[in-house]
């Protein structure tokens, strides 16, 4: 394939995926400039390796993987890592909050009515990467489990499990905000 043909094909197929990747880039970097750099790096890499993309497979997932690797290589190293939380620790934590969440009556209404967007965004930002990624892709970008599974290269069951646990952690965090502000009475 000559370069011009490659460029036309790339613009036709890959460029339309740009919005979902930009959105994801912004939500993982929390910075417009970083998101732009990451998006550019992803697309330039994808163009250079366009020949390696296996036609008929999921292009969006391929682009996501390039972005994720670029992010890990370029940005995550520079960022001050937060307190590392192991998957098992989070799983235990989820088990302890499950009952509490169930016993809170009208939790849904209290959360919906009282929390500010910033508080929700902050809670999401504080999630461990494994959970934040699947929540971002599912709840913000609206991707089906199958595509998310291709992106994170895990079985669909793992995707479901992580989304479930991620949402539970979020609920607990949001409940804490709401309680602090007096929207929900302390049990």
């Amino acid at each position, binding site marked *: 394939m000559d*370069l*011009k043909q*490659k*460029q036309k094909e*790339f*613009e036709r197929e890959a*460029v*339309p995926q*740009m*919005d*979902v990747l*930009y*959105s994801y880039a*912004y*939500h993982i970097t929390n910075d417009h400039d970083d998101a*732009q750099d990451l*998006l*550019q790096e992803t*697309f*330039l890499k994808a*163009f*250079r390796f366009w020949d390696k993309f296996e036609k008929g497979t999921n292009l969006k997932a391929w682009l996501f993987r390039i972005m994720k690797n670029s992010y890990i290589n370029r940005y995550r190293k520079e960022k001050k890592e937060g307190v590392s939380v192991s998957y098992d620790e989070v799983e235990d934590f989820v088990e302890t909050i*499950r009952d509490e*969440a*169930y016993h*809170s*009556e009208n*939790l*849904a*209404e209290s*959360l*919906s009515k009282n*929390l*500010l*967007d*910033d*508080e*929700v*965004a902050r809670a*999401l930002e504080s999630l461990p990467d494994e959970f934040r990624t699947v*929540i*971002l892709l*599912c*709840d*913000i*970008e*609206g991707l*089906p*489990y199958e595509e998310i599974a291709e992106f994170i290269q895990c079985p669909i*069951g793992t995707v*479901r*499990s992580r*989304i*479930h646990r991620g*949402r539970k952690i*979020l*609920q607990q965090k*949001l409940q804490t905000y709401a309680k602090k502000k007096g929207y929900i009475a302390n049990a």
Partner: protein
Amino acid sequence: MPNATTFTASSDFSSCNQYSELITAFVDGELHTEEETTFRSHLHICSRCQSSYEAEIATKNLIHTAVPPLKTPWRVRADIIEKIRIEAGVEKQQNPSPVFLWWKPSLAFGGALALFLISFLFFFNQEKEPPKEISILQNVPTKVEEKKIASSDITSSTASIPAVEPLVGTSQANVLEESMTDFDLYLQGKKKPKKTSRESNELQQFLSSRVNFPVKLPQMKDCELLGGDVQEYGSERIAKVMYSHRGQAMTLYQTSLAAIDEGDIFFLPESIRTILKEGSWYVDKSDPKCCVTMWVESGTLFYAVSNANSQEIMQELSTGFQTVSKK
């Protein structure tokens, strides 16, 4: 991982805990039909799962509302496409196309702003030192006095299509810089605007004689006509009409409809092309400082770029354009 096929409708709480992940999949519409039917039956008889389901729906909705998906800013998209084209060796560096105007609204806006400032200063402020952009914008009068326009500034049109000034640069990204350079030249009195006029008929005649598509300059309620220009981008010509809207700038670009069918000139996503061809207008508010609206009417592609309030601009445009008013 629970086996979904063993799930049965029950009010047993231990069963709820065991299968609580199904709530997540149900909320996301990811259950198989059989699982969903069974789960719905359970939901009817289990208040605990109902609460959990409602809380999960609320959490999902909260996230979606609080953290909405973003669109790629046009200038970012333009930069990336340009870099890819340069890497592929297909970018025409010496023959810039108007693609930057579409994909880089901030540059287009910068150009529009520069032209607006040029016009304004030409009318009112030739002897003064160039003030900063922001102070000019803040102090622009809402009313333009007609008597300030000198008759010598009005260029008469000619019968044949005259040559227009091509916008030549080393790269498309320098267009704003070039506009600003022009701005300085105007201030120094070394250059004059192509056409300054508040008479729409006169300006329409000037623009129409220089392009091969219908040009439209309708009356708009709060838009003061300042002037116009035609410039050549590659093989296409674009008519630019500058307005002042309550002290803010609005530039209305017009070009041939055929331009949007040529990917090398206007690289528009298929979705936007479809919208335009269906006769609808397209509004992009991804850049909060710049409102860009695009539509097609009578064989001409229009796009308005402004730093004014987008709703006000849409109202203005709807008074002057049929396509905008009927949507």
